[in-house]
């Protein structure tokens, strides 16, 4: 455990990163990001392709070790903690490229999360499957429970990705583009689901390209560009920020008045 305290932003934090750097060979994917997420908050994380959003999410979930920097869950330093233990501390994530267990049923996929997640050690298999059924009901996958995961549509697989993560009973849920490729109607359903999950007390960090979704559910938005945090604040303020518009559209548009990123 590090002797350093979590960044104090006036409130307690659910998850926080300080001075996180991730270097892949010559590429600085994340370049000194400090970011704190409050309990119960919905933070939108946006930025152009290659900005380092997914990498930052991976650092927070323990699937990527940072080159330097520190990550906390509450006041526990998790920088060197293995992924499976971070899950048991209450952090779950989804993958942008969905990773279903293709040869298991939808129900079994979700049950794995319940069998091994935060409460996995202290409940029976029967209880875990019951918990999985509740999650399936909640995300609207109950009718598909007995199908093979490989048979689901893209929207279904995105939903399954969320369901598996939810089954681990997270306190913090890190979502990587769970709405990419969905129809507007499916996007609305996904937004309703995320609001519902947040209302049950789960802190959300949402990486998303679908601006309608980000603007619709985020209480705060943080913008990454070339591995750096270039802006954060209320959604409306952030998307009007010239720096942000420049990052997305180039310098030419930054001064203009019609900057909807």
């Amino acid at each position: 455990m590090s002797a350093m305290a979590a960044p104090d932003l006036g409130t307690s934090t659910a998850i926080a990163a300080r001075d996180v750097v991730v270097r892949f060979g010559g590429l600085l994917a994340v370049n000194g990001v400090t970011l704190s997420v409050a309990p119960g908050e919905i933070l939108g994380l946006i930025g152009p392709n290659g900005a380092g959003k997914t990498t930052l999410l991976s650092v927070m979930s323990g699937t990527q070790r940072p080159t330097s920097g520190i990550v906390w869950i509450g006041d526990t330093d998790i920088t060197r903690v293995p992924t499976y233990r971070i899950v048991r501390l209450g952090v779950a994530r989804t993958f942008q490229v969905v990773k279903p267990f293709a040869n298991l049923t939808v129900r079994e996929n979700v049950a794995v999360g319940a069998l091994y997640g935060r409460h996995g050690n202290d409940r029976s298999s029967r209880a875990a499957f019951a918990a999985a059924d509740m999650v399936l009901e909640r995300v609207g996958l109950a009718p598909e429970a007995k199908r093979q995961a490989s048979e689901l549509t893209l929207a279904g697989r995105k939903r399954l990705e969320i369901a598996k993560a939810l089954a681990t009973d997270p306190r913090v849920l890190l979502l990587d583009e769970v709405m990419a490729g969905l129809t507007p109607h499916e996007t609305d359903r996904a937004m309703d689901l995320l609001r519902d999950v947040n209302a049950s007390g789960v802190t959300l960090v949402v990486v998303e390209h679908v601006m309608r979704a980000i603007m619709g559910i985020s209480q705060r938005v943080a913008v990454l560009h070339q591995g750096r945090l270039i802006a954060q604040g209320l959604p409306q303020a952030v998307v009007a920020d010239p720096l942000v518009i420049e990052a997305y559209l180039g310098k030419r548009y930054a001064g203009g008045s019609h900057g909807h990123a």
Partner: protein
Amino acid sequence: MQAGRRLAYGALVVLALSALLPPHLNGNWVHVLTLFFMMSSLAQAWNLIGGFAGYASFGNVTFFGVGAYACAYAMNALHWPFATAFLLAVVAGAALAAVLGWPILRLRGHYFAIATLGIAIGMQALVAELPPLGKGSGMTLPINSNFHFFYWSMLGILMASIALTAFIAQSRFGYALVAIRENEEAAAVLGINAARAKVFAWSLSAAITGAAGATYAYWTSFIDPPTVFDLNFNVLMIIMTLLGGAGSIVGPTLGAFILSAIGEYLGAQSVSPWHTVVLGAIIVLVVVLLPRGLMPYLTGNLRAFNLNALRAQLRASRV
């Protein structure tokens, strides 16, 4: 999974009944069935790491050889009774897998396969250099000509390995292994300690394999490195498992039964050179036509076993 478990219970009942057979069989059949039980056990053991966890081990024969030598050394040099020597072989196999697995199971795909192959080859060479193990010239064990004993021993190992697999398949641990096979990173973010689960699975696999090796050594009463570290054993474990159905509960035993039956039939026709050719053809056919083996067709786990599905697979694979 339900159907697979019912099939496993059925197989256990049939096997239990086959314990009554030896007094009614001639020596050759006792031999053939003992060998079948042994190969089935090896395939069931391989299935735990290769079928459930998805780590294709080309080094499981190492544990067969180590089990055989542990038993031979304990009985020959230490004068232990077979029961204790057998336990030593089980523990030696499991412990070796744990020690080797910790670094090796971090490798994936081809790298793991190649590393395990290296271990199998290296261990054979190492044993052939160790004076207490008779170097390359092998070791003798006390002779026991009660061949029914070996029939029942191998049968017991097989039944235990099937029961263990049936238990694992529906357990929390079993789901961890399958999740690791399907996607290891996705398994980790659900809270699964993949390294520990894989090492444990390989140790169980090695324990069964070591048990079969020990029994084999006592059965033949003479072992040497090329016999008990024979990579053909390892190849057979894999083919039998793939034929029956990797990751199923009794698929490996079904595969072992079919291959053994083919082997016996061709052997009886004294066309033994063809045996190997047929074996090779089966490998190719299984990989092309039955990527999940025969088991899904028995458990109804596949949509339907019909010619259309086969034709579609043939078209897709452009045969």
